[in-house]
């Protein structure tokens, strides 16, 4: 397998994530799409790590996963807080900064 294979796969997965972010109105799904995009990035990192025989790519993957965990925790906290106040998780109804 060449790294091109992995890159194409990663690009396609990234695209799916973008598709989700753009078309869905459900904020949880949008978050999940972002996770998909982060995974696509990780596939890239690992593929390059494999290509160059260098483990740094994996180190960065681990950092990305850590950041994703932090992002999910805070993001979901925000979703819960929003839901308590607005009784909705549709982002079209969350376009005001103040209510």
């Amino acid at each position: 397998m060449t790294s091109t294979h992995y890159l194409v796969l990663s690009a396609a997965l990234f695209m799916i994530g973008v598709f989700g972010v753009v078309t869905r109105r459900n904020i949880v799904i949008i978050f999940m799409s972002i996770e998909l995009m982060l995974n696509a990035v990780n596939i890239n990192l690992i593929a390059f790590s494999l290509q160059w025989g260098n483990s740094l790519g994996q180190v960065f993957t681990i950092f990305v996963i850590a950041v994703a965990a932090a992002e999910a925790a805070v993001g979901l906290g925000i979703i819960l807080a929003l839901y308590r106040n607005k009784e909705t998780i549709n982002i079209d109804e969350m376009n005001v900064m103040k209510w």
Partner: protein
Amino acid sequence: MADVITFYTLAALILIFGLLVVTTRNTVHSVLFLVADFLAVAMLYASMNSLFVAAIQVLVYAGGIVVLYLFVVMLVNLKRPPEEVRDPARQTGLGGVLAGVVLAELALIAVANALDPPATDAASSTAGLTEQVGLALYTDYLIPFEVASVLLLVAMVGAIVLARREL
């Protein structure tokens, strides 16, 4: 041969599950597909000789983060998705443009690849070894590692504050 079959199977699984994540109506099903997708990605990592990252992927992503998603989905109840009011004109247009751009890009890569096939990987057998990752993590990247742990701590505190009832 075996690795080609593995790659294409996993790639197909990853893309199909990914699509299902963003297209399924029922949010809980969506979360389930996300778990499946992450597991497939973990298997891909394993097939790329990166067992450590694969295990972390399963442990943190599938076993940790997605459980959080499931929790939130169950808390805010998505049996009646808030989906249905959407604004088709803007979103579909934008989605179409984006999809076109990326497709063009992929086509470009494929063509370039066909014209000038890159050398196969160095396939260094040591690249995926856990020891290597650990060494890099705890020597050269010690400061980023510590910063990441502080980030996680801050995120934890932040999440607790945000999710508190009386906000």
